[in-house]
């Protein structure tokens, strides 16, 4: 069971992510963006870790999404292999069109790449459908109807697992309603969309995997519970097939109990697993079941 942990220029969580992958019993290696993309087909799963790929130039994830490795990742996603995007990885998956994947945008954009030399030949109808269903915009923290803060924010957050067990590769072994304490650290995690009915559709098809909540699991759509202004407190989404998961929180930073914050009593029991381990274990379970 071999996992590729992708590394773009500016990725900065690849090593701890690889530790997490290996600690749940999977094999893995760091896969640099400039390796031949075809080599990705020999892997069983993929993690796009956090960081600031290409220094967030243009906007977070936009440049990495155009790399040939992402086209190969889209092809592997079509085969049903699990893909986990964490933080910047989530932003890259959104910019690639793999998440939420409602308009099959990945295949549309790859068609465009092929016809790009004759770029002006694209029809205006095609041009009006860029194939990206949503954006992860700049954080806007709202409380009591007022904007209390904007921009980069890092903290420990509580997440509630929203989808049923086995719905999504990255939460395959997590019960619906389970609560996880995992840290976030980002400036652009505010889910916005102009696609009519998208959020309703995501809810109905159980593609909303995690929401920000308070410590009792209540969804309060206000800062400090909703830490970035994301629509309906959405923290993680999967595609329709369930094999691609994107999440803003960093499970690899809560993989061991000793990584938990000082005020958490579990920190004193360093042999215990941290809550983030469930995400990587789920990925392993998903591969075992679907092998």
């Amino acid at each position: 069971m071999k996992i590729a942990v992708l590394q773009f220029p500016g990725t900065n969580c690849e090593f701890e992510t690889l530790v997490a992958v290996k600690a749940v019993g999977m094999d893995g290696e760091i896969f640099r963006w400039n390796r031949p993309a075809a080599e990705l087909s020999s892997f069983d799963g993929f993690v796009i870790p956090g960081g600031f790929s290409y220094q967030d130039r243009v906007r977070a994830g936009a440049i990495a999404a155009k790399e040939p490795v992402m086209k190969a990742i889209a092809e592997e996603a079509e085969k049903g292999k699990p893909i986990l995007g964490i933080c910047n990885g989530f932003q890259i998956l959104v910019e690639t069109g793999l998440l939420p994947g409602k308009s099959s945008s990945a295949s549309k954009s790859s068609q465009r790449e092929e016809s790009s030399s004759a770029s002006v030949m694209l029809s205006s109808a095609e041009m009006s459908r860029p194939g990206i269903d949503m954006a992860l915009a700049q954080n806007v923290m709202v409380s009591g109807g007022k904007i209390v803060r904007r921009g980069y924010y890092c903290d420990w957050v509580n997440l509630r697992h929203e989808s049923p067990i086995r719905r999504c590769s990255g939460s395959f072994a997590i019960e619906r309603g389970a609560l996880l304490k995992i840290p976030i650290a980002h400036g652009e995690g505010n889910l916005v969309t102009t696609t009519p009915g998208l959020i309703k559709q995501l809810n109905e098809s159980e593609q909303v995997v995690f929401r920000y909540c308070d410590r009792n699991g209540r969804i309060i759509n206000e800062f400090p519970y909703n830490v970035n202004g994301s629509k309906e407190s959405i923290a993680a989404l999967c595609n329709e097939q369930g094999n691609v998961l994107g999440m803003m929180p960093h499970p690899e930073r809560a993989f061991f109990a000793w990584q938990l914050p000082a005020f958490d009593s579990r920190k004193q029991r360093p042999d215990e697993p941290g809550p983030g381990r469930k995400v990587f274990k789920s990925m392993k379970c998903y591969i075992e079941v679907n092998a």
Partner: protein
Amino acid sequence: MSLINLRVWLKIPDAEAATVKNTLARRMGYGDILADVKKERLFSIEVDSGDVQSDVQSDVQELARAFAKELVNENKESHKVLIDSLEFEEGYVPVKVALHIEDGEAISTRERLRSRLGYQNVVDVKKATIWKLYFRTLKPEAEIAAREVAERLLINPHKDSFEVLSQS
């Protein structure tokens, strides 16, 4: 009301523009038609210039100079002030990209000018990025290509909007 447009660009090489050029040429198939990419920041500052008086224009000029002093780092940036107009040079297609959702940076800039620096006549501030796309093709084709580049790379339509601007 007067509109002060402050165009700001780096004197040193702009790494973001270089990355965009590289991505368009090497990853997106524009190598044959794209010659270069440059980038500017644009502040559009709306000021209440008061009653119509003969020296209003000079007051606004003075204000524009003061804003430039606050918003431009002369050590690494150059700028150009345009009042009640926005013009660009020949030779490239300017594409203006701005957020269509609330722009926190623009609001912060307005509040900084109004509350911290005391320019109470500042009514609104808008921020945008101007991408200057140099094509090897002639104008109608270049503008079509610029539109396509904007849609394929420069914007995410769920938060950004763009406008292909005409030159002077």
